[in-house]
């Protein structure tokens, strides 16, 4: 049995995990070939992903591949946007040149894919936008809000700190829309807590490596840090490494972070993280089903108008994972890797 691209998993493996996916009950679809007007010829679906340089993005793909494995006549074409809007814009057009039946799009940058999205629309095929929106007409947008999620996480932080203290912020890649949104969410909450002071801000680029020297330097400059608000679990683990190296484990600096991986939840349970924004990648199966509904001429239930052109499918909010609910969520997050050793333990 062939392994699927990128994930390197076979359909058997993917289908074994299918039951674990959080939103299989949204837009349900039976296993088996998809018939359009009684015809079960091959259906090709194009997926233009932001990039495959982060496991979150790979997990999103796995949910898509799992759904596709359930329908033998559904084929996928997967393109990697390399975190470059211009490249992704080109990718979408290449999908159209290839003659796909529908386009799934998870944009690098919300507004920048408008022309590409319009090109899909004028080709007359369904366009399902996932994760980050595109401010133009589309068949459906499926996503969660980074702003409200960051608000939740920041509220937890404010509560834990008793409304008072010093924090440092390690953002995601500067200028990328989740980083902008998570920062906005945090600022919305901090506006209510004037006694929480942001000592320093640095760019962690979603990953571990740059977070380490950043945090080391923050620790050198400030002797009274109460919490690290980081946009990514990887950066939080990096910050923790820096804390251990600086021999500042005794400061009991708290970590507030995002991503929603199983490893992240385990770190919450272990007490390394105080809260983890539960940002699930498992929405692409829903996206694929929505596209298939559309192709089959089926009504998509539960959609609503919203402040952007097109329709939105609101997914139930996943609660922020904290010590109280960590056990309940371990296994339902993404990724099956272990958290890093906590050097403070």
């Amino acid at each position, binding site marked *: 049995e062939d392994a699927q*691209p990128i994930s390197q998993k076979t359909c058997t493996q993917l289908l074994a995990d299918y039951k674990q996916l959080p939103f299989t009950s949204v837009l349900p679809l039976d296993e088996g070939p998809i018939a359009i007007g009684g015809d079960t010829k091959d259906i090709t679906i194009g997926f233009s992903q932001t990039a495959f340089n982060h496991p979150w993005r790979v997990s999103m793909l796995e949910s898509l591949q799992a759904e596709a494995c359930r329908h033998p006549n559904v084929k996928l074409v997967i393109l990697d946007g390399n975190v470059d809007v211009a490249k992704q814009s080109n990718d979408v057009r290449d999908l159209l040149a290839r003659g796909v039946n529908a386009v799934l799009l998870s944009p690098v940058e919300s507004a920048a894919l408008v022309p590409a999205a319009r090109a899909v629309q004028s080709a007359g095929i369904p366009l399902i936008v996932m994760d980050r929106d595109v401010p133009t007409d589309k068949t459906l947008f499926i996503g969660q809000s980074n702003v409200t999620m960051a608000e939740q996480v920041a509220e937890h932080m404010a509560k834990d700190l008793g409304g008072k203290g010093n924090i440092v912020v390690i953002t995601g890649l500067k200028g990328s829309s989740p980083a902008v949104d998570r920062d906005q969410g945090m600022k919305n909450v901090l506006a209510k807590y004037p006694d929480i002071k942001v000592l320093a801000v640095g760019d962690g680029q979603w990953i571990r490596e740059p977070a380490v020297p950043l945090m080391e330097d923050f620790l050198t400059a400030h002797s009274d840090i109460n919490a690290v608000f980081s946009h990514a679990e990887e950066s939080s683990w990096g910050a923790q490494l820096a804390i251990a190296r600086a021999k500042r484990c005794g400061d009991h600096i708290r970590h507030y972070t995002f991503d929603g991986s199983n490893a992240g939840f385990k770190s919450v349970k272990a007490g390394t993280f105080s809260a983890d924004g539960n940002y699930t990648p498992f929405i692409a199966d829903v996206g694929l089903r929505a596209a298939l509904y559309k192709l089959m001429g089926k009504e998509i239930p539960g959609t609503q108008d919203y402040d952007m052109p097109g329709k939105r499918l609101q997914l139930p909010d996943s609660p922020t994972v904290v010590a109280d609910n960590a056990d309940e969520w371990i296994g339902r997050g993404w990724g099956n890797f272990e958290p890093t050793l906590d050097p403070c333990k």
Partner: protein
Amino acid sequence: MAALIILVIAASFLSDRFLTPANLLNILRQVAIVGILAIGMTFVILTRGIDLSVGSILGLSVVIYAGLLETHSMAIAIPLGLLVAMAAGLVNGLGVASAGIPPFIMTLGMLSFARGLAFLYTGGTPIPILNEAFYDLGNDYLFGIPIPSLILLAILAVSAIILSLTAFGRSVYAIGSNEEAARLSGVPVRLYKIIVYVIAGGVSGLAGLVYASQLSIGTPIAGQGYELDAIAAVVVGGTSLFGGKGSVGGTFLGTLIIGVLANILNLTGVDPYVQQLFKGALIVVAVYFMSRSGRS
């Protein structure tokens, strides 16, 4: 040239969609941004310099177009954006030619500086562009050809004329070939080097124009990493990094080769990770065959 032809033949076997007019126009539009940058880069590299800041200058111009278009017309936004891009190029040129800072360092500094400016200008949030005329500039067709491609071809034509038919152009080659000899012959080396960086900056601003209009957004991360793509197109096109040798025509070919590679890999739907492997290997192979065929 031979390499491109072989590539095109191979591509048309690999996908029957490749040799359709729509797809070929697609490619021509897709390569516009990097192709334009690469032409400016060719000027710099011909003088034995390098410009790492083209991607950042593109980004800076993009946010300026977007910012100005919020309140002003295109007639104001476009010239001002280009002016800023040329000013950045001028700073590069002064640093290299007058202060004697190695081009790599000077433009690396500008890479960081211009990007920082773009972030500061936008506060990190992309500025959407709602001007329809501007949108059309990047997405419409003229004589059946996408406007960005026409812009690319126009810049190519003008550059080819400048390089082969003006005293300035010929001197650019001379400076790259033997700067001392050029100076001894009375070529105003310093001035010309400055001009070359201003051209690279201005051309980056034009690439930014295509970017902003094509994507309808002023994002401060626009063009990140494009410097390497542009340099690659120049070198694949046969221009020597040690100056004095090459042409914008070659650069255009190089751009097409890289563009066709990316397109065919997308059309055949290869695993993106494997694509990356292929891309690496194919560039090397293309250049190998190009240098072979160039020799005989």
